[in-house]
């Protein structure tokens, strides 16, 4: 009997410590195919599937939370959610404020997208980028005039309505717009900036970082990551 009680107590403790732990994942929900709100009103995309797989591998209960890109880091450090999984490149500047897990998407060059046939001065023209992105930082340094927007979608609209000469963003994001534009949009340049994409966690949350790292390692090993990248990024081959 006594043993039974002890066993129950131990079990309930371990459940409290790990099994029932609820982790809130913050994402932007506006960056297809990484993450977006599908027509059923739910968060969908590569990171949704991968995030669910990571949580399953790490035996965590995960809840998805939408947050504007602009405030996605401040709201992580103030504790509104526990991790960022939003197509965020691992950079030294961000690493000073938050911690990153290992990458789950390889470094992707950034592309300049403009109207097809137009001559764009990449070093002196007007270039659109999303606020607080590596691309925005790059454009600001490049000598071109930077126009920033809160959402990725608005950067595309700015090119289409002539407000900007081109937009600089991840190739994987722009690719779908070029392909579906019936030849009206085209890539006008390419540049390699930023590292791979990883999950962001609070610097004080080393335990969670390690848990995620272990889960990502196992998903890379069993081919899940490669499979999901091929599924969401048009058959793209990743070497994990």
């Amino acid at each position, binding site marked *: 009997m006594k043993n039974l009680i002890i066993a129950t107590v131990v079990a309930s403790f371990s459940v409290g410590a790990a099994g*029932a732990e609820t982790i809130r994942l913050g994402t932007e929900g506006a960056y297809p195919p990484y993450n977006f709100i599908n027509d059923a009103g739910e968060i969908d995309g590569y990171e949704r599937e991968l995030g669910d797989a990571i949580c399953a591998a790490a035996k965590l209960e995960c809840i998805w939370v939408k947050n504007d890109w602009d405030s996605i880091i401040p709201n992580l450090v103030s*504790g509104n959610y526990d991790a960022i999984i939003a197509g965020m490149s691992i950079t030294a500047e961000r690493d000073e404020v938050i911690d990153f897990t290992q990458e789950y998407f390889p470094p992707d060059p950034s592309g300049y997208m403009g109207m097809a046939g137009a001559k764009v001065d990449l070093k002196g023209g007007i270039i659109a980028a999303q606020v607080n992105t590596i691309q925005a930082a790059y454009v600001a340094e490049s000598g071109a005039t930077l126009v920033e927007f809160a959402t990725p979608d608005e950067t595309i609209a700015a090119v289409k309505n002539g407000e900007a000469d081109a937009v600089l963003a991840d190739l994987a994001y722009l690719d779908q717009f070029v392909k*579906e534009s019936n030849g009206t949009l085209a890539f006008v340049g390419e540049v390699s900036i930023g590292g791979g994409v990883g999950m962001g966690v609070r610097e*004080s949350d080393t335990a969670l970082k390690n848990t995620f790292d272990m889960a990502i390692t196992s998903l890379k090993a069993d081919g899940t990551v490669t499979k999901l990248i091929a599924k969401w990024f048009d058959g793209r081959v990743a070497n994990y």
Partner: protein
Amino acid sequence: MCSDPSSLEGLNWLWCYLTTAKHMKFYLSFGTVILLLVSTVPFIVMFGFLGALARRAPFAPLRWFGLAYTSMVRGVPDIAFFLFVPIALDQFVELVRHKVKCPDVLEPIYQGNDFVVCTAAKMPLSASPQWLHQAWGLTLAITAFAIVFGAFAANIIHGALMAVPKNQLETAKAYGLTDSQTFWRIHMPQMWVYALPGLSNLWQILVKASPLLFLLGIEEIVYWARELGGTKPSVFTYPHGDWRMWYFLALLVFYLILTWGSQKAFEWLENRLAKGTSTVQGRAA
């Protein structure tokens, strides 16, 4: 019919598109806005009253507090307050809960950039359903709105209390009413006539300020209009171009109807309250 959207055309496509679960969230968010407006008003009037009473208080520090509240809030841009109050209030609540619920946690709450409270002190708890998180967000927003608009209401009510003709109050006194009887039976009922034009103006400003919710991360109509209107590549079930203009046009119509309707309602109320008073409307009636 809507099971295979790629085969749909024309009006059928549009019908299925406009009835997606995502659009339902958009339609529901109009309710969020109305809910915010309706639930904020009592607090605004309450804050306004307390502010106005504080400014008339015989006790000097209370008077200074009332004056400080109205001048300070009215002197700071709304947007700064809307960004400050919810964050400050949220962290304050979690700080207090942390002290109460986890007194034995010794790690500091502020660790570098991080604000870390124990799991039990989270507000709401991490494990709580998402609607509870949204409700808490809305509560913070309502508080911010009430504080800001309450300051304006306090000024309006303060002015209205002073606008009631003095001889009304003197007559009440001559009839032997006590101070509190005079206030509740003579002063207050007549005050409304003078306060209403200002309060109706405040209501219109409140209606127009409701998109500020969007800044606080609440998914209201502006959020959904922007999200639904943006260009949708073929990864979505219903791909389309940049339709933001049409969605924002719908918002424009919604707000015009709302403000026009409330204008009518206030006109009716003003006329009704003015009956028998010594104001222009009162005389005409």
